[in-house]
């Protein structure tokens, strides 16, 4: 296996969860999410030889994945039974058993639904926050200043929190 192939597999393995969550948020339904995930894998493969290591590999990969997601137009109808899809990020946990796990899955579903109601750009910031990226990393991924990230994130967190609470009621 070549060095490039090895790097690719490692990167994908380390960031699989992130890419799947991103696909789920930016695709309209489970099938579209699967296609988008495949598209991300392809884009990462095509772009990897040009990656010069100026940023963290995870940061770079997130840029590729997010750019790929934003390039596609979203399907209008969101399928509600997304967790029945074998590639859905929540699926395995939805069938994992105990009540607490189910509650956790419902909670994450509510979060996905709240994110779904944000604007596309806001969604990107919300995702980066949820992925526990620092302001510096968010700024590097999105290409906006750290100050700007702080201001926007404050507003989006408040909005997201209100949306989640609204869904809770």
């Amino acid at each position, binding site marked *: 296996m070549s060095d490039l192939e090895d790097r690719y597999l490692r990167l994908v393995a380390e960031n699989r969860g992130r890419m799947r969550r991103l696909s789920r948020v930016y695709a309209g339904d489970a099938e579209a999410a699967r296609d988008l995930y495949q598209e991300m894998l392809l884009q990462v493969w095509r772009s990897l030889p040009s990656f010069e290591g100026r940023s963290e590999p995870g940061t770079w990969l997130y840029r590729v994945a997010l750019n790929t997601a934003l390039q596609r137009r979203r399907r209008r109808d969101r399928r509600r039974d997304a967790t029945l899809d*074998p590639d859905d990020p929540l699926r395995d946990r939805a069938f994992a058993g105990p009540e607490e796990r189910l509650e956790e899955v419902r909670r994450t579903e509510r979060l996905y639904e709240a994110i779904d109601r944000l604007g596309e750009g806001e969604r990107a910031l919300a995702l980066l926050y949820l992925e526990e990226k620092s302001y510096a990393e968010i700024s590097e991924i999105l290409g906006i200043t750290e100050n700007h990230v702080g201001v926007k994130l404050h507003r989006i967190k408040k909005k997201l929190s209100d949306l989640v609470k609204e869904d809770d009621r």
Partner: protein
Amino acid sequence: MSLDEYAESWIESGSGGGEPAAGEELLARVRERSEAFERRIRRRDLRESAAAVFVVVVFGYETITAGSWLSRMGAALVMTGALYVMWRLRRARPDEDPAAAGRPVADRLRIRLRQVEEQVRLHETVLWWYLAPLGVGSVMFVVGLGSGLWATLTTLAVIAVLSEYVRRANGRLVRSDLRPRRERLARLLRELEEA
């Protein structure tokens, strides 16, 4: 329940679940898709080059050998017009450089917005840079051949119908696809940039 508590569940989602393919299998699939993509691009470039060669050979020949100066000028106009059309279409094509996917999101959006704006301009002015040189050149060519009034009128009618069809099709594309895309990109960029 606070947002942070929700956020705790977030990272967990997507960490489980089966990977449709991994290791060698994933590499094989991704390589196959990448090669198919490259093949598509190569085929498209080849088709365009073949069309350019065809236009140069056929109309270049007529530019030199046609019986009248009007036909020769018409052939030259069609040839240069067709080459100009190809050049403009190629220039307006979305960026296919794989490295572009790794740029910061706002930069990438700005570039794509400029490209879509250029495409809107192209489609809205298709009459002037696409249809007019080819249409006028064809009419000059036919008239210069001295084929008579009916042949000239038929050529004019065919060109007029075709031009109107192309103009309307372009207008539809702008309304149904390009403008919504431009607005979406502009909105996205605004959402990211406005404080």
